[in-house]
């Protein structure tokens, strides 16, 4: 019987640093691209003067898009960074103690309270007492709104790293920091990227909810109200429709990227197993 070759051997080489660098590149690129595209589309649709005007005096779907881009640029990195630290506290057994208990308790409490309630409370508190700008208050509201979800999902991503691997790293004298960057993050890099993209999509969508609150305080109208309000105005309808489409496309792109990163994480985990 002759030798039968089926397919070509799949190379098994991988380096954790390569995976980490690739995932981080995707993360940075995705966030940057989303913010850039959103701002660019808003600029093209409105022109610089109108863009500046809608930020100063929020009005219509165009302003919702512009505010979404700016709020996302502020809220996403902050939420991600805080959520990352909190998730490490919640999952790293070597930290333990008060920090771990505090994060876990907070997560459990946050489940019972609708995040939008906290977000609205934060928004009005900031506007009323700190006299912050609408964008700043909206960004802070979004951060508070999304932090529990981001922390929980990142903690879930990190908990995919086997406990025995953490113990093995600790037994080799790895500190919490070196174990995180040398083991936990490389192994969960795609899952973290997926969380980030899902978070970005969710935030883009939720800026509309925040805009509803802004409109209640006399600022911008919510996206849905803006569409209704401007639907009869033919000259503005095309711009509004285009803005809405971009918003929907951005959310869809975030979701698609998140799903792709989740698939990559599963593939990577399967390869390592």
């Amino acid at each position, binding site marked *: 019987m002759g030798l039968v070759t089926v397919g070509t051997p799949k190379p*098994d*080489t*991988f*380096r*954790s640093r390569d995976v980490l660098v690739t995932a981080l590149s995707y993360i940075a690129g995705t966030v940057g691209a989303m913010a850039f595209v959103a701002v660019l589309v808003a600029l093209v649709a409105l022109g610089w003067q109108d863009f500046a005007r809608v930020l100063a005096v929020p009005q219509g779907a165009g302003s919702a898009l512009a505010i979404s881009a700016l709020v996302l640029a502020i809220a996403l990195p902050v939420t991600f960074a805080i959520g990352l630290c909190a998730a490490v506290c919640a999952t790293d*057994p*070597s930290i*333990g*103690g008060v920090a*771990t208990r505090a994060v876990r308790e907070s997560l459990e409490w946050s489940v019972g309270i609708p995040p939008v309630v906290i977000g609205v409370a934060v928004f009005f508190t900031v506007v009323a007492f700190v006299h912050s700008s609408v964008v700043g208050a909206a960004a802070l509201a979004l951060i508070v709104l999304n932090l529990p979800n981001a922390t929980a999902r990142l903690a879930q991503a990190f908990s995919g*790293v*086997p406990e*025995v*691997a*953490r*113990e*093995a*790293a*600790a*037994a*080799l*004298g*790895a*500190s919490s920091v*070196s*174990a995180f960057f*040398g*083991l936990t993050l*490389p*192994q969960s890099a795609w899952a973290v990227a997926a969380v980030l993209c899902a978070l970005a999509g969710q935030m883009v969508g939720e800026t509309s909810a925040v805009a509803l609150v802004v409109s209640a305080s006399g600022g911008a109208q919510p996206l849905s109200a803006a569409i209704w309000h401007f639907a009869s105005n033919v000259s503005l309808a095309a711009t509004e429709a285009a803005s809405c489409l971009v918003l929907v496309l951005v959310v869809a792109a975030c979701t698609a990227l998140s799903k792709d990163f989740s698939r990559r994480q599963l593939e990577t985990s399967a*390869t*390592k*197993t």
Partner: protein
Amino acid sequence: MSTQGGPTVETKLEASQLHVWFGDKHALRSVNISVVAGRTVAFIGASKSGKTTLLRSFNRLHDLNPRARLHGSVKIDGAEILGRGVDVAALRRRVGMIFSTPTVLPTSIFDNVAFGLRAKGLRDRILLEEKVERSLRRVLLWDAVSALLDRAPSDLTIEQLQRLCLARAMALDPEVLLFDDPTATLDPVAGLAFEEVLIPLRRDHTVLIATNNLEQAARLSDTTCYLASGEVIESGETPLVFSRPTDTRTEDFLAGRSP
């Protein structure tokens, strides 16, 4: 070695009045042992008798378990290691540990062996390569993996994976090696092959091995210590413990009789 008396001049490890709790469970009860440098000690006993708990006390791996509480004293070279001011990372580099299942890290073979060195702060690639090669040679794995260093260790056999874990610990030049039932997942032939690697390492290290394999304990150890329900029941020179145990509970365990 003295296992129930006071420390000797050559004492490497010493535990005095050591108690360990996991929540309400009292896992170790007033354990007193001392281990002379360069000796190999086997801990035998039924499951949940406290063998692994005792081993983990020597490298403070219980720190990872928020439910664990330790009381008493554990010393290495006469220095207390349970205190707050102890550099736990440095301690764990001095006291290497090999687990019952091969716990390879999800990275390449080279990065597995270099992990502890990098965590220690070593960045020089040439030095890393030298140390990785030396470690893999010491566990007789170099010839098998020298061409596969950048690959995941998934193609290695379980016995080779366990040797890789040993190489990873050896890369840090530990003074003490803790083996937590290292051949539990290996078939008898692979288990004996792993023991062949372990035998020469005993000359340069103080070795503590927790095992459920009585023949392995008899083959490898100078001293055997029998634990039951978290207590040290009997300890002494291995031939004596196996041939003339002084406690009936030890005798029953060695004979396979239920207590």
